[in-house]
């Protein structure tokens, strides 16, 4: 007999189901807060005069702006786990287009995979979440693939 799986039918039903969209209205103030939190003085994130002369023609957001909670880490998906503790396992992001102040980014996530593993702290569940970020023109600006570990 195999040991019972921690991945329930209820969890399996969530695979591939798109969660509630998260909407992020990108503002200069928010970009500045993020650049300050990061201690990243790149003028491309903050200095309009400088940014105007670049090929972007204006301020853009640092790559870190996406894939954060405000842009959808809550992700609107039904995360279920038999465990109480959770940690971020890793992230992979692909960037396609710059994000600018004034953009409205809609992110939609889905759970694409569950993996059970035996770790130092006993059984662990890896939940893989994929997210697509689109701007107000419907263009995909980025995609991400993140692992959440519960144990």
């Amino acid at each position, binding site marked *: 007999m195999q040991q019972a799986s921690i991945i329930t039918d209820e969890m399996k039903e969530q695979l591939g189901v798109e969660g509630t969209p998260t909407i992020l209205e990108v503002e200069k103030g928010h970009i500045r*807060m993020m650049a300050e939190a990061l201690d*990243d003085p*790149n003028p491309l994130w903050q200095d309009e005069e400088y940014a105007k002369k670049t090929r972007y023609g204006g301020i853009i957001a*640092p*790559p870190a702006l996406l*894939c954060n909670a405000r842009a959808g*880490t809550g992700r609107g998906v039904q995360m279920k786990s038999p465990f109480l503790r959770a940690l971020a396992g*890793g992230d992979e992001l692909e*960037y396609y287009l710059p994000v600018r102040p004034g953009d409205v980014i809609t992110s939609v996530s889905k759970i694409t995979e569950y993996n059970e593993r035996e770790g130092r702290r006993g059984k662990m569940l890896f939940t893989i979440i994929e997210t697509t970020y689109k701007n107000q023109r419907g263009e995909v600006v980025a995609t991400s693939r993140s692992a959440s570990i519960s*144990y």
Partner: protein
Amino acid sequence: MKKQLYYEDVEVGSEVIPLAKIATTEMLVKWAGATGDFNPLHYEDAFAASQGVGSPIVHGALKRAWLGHLMTDWIGEQGVLNRLSCQYRGMDYPRKMKDMATPEEGETWWCKGTVTKKYVEDDQHIVECDIWVENGKGEKTTPGTATVILPSREAKS
């Protein structure tokens, strides 16, 4: 203004210019505010202890953002960051604040990288790197990879 990096400037094995970071409790508060990630794991002692990590830890996403900073600094305004991935393998603990502006003595983190591959595809000059965040003991707590597109001197007309 920084000097622009070109495709011709890098070879396999070239070093990404390292970037030093000091995680402080203040920085974690700022990051929580900027991202809206209010998980108490990153500021509440008792909760962090109950989660089995001892005390509040640095957000994985903040370390990923440091790696983004590493790469955008290195590739300059004309470079494009295409892909960035990392894994949160080891916990990192912020320095506490001594007063309003000064952190206690302690750990400094380094973001580093090396070029693993360079090639031209569809007229794009692509460079792949191994990247990581290293703690004060030199351990890679956050290893990852990045793909960037650099301008080429030869392609310039």
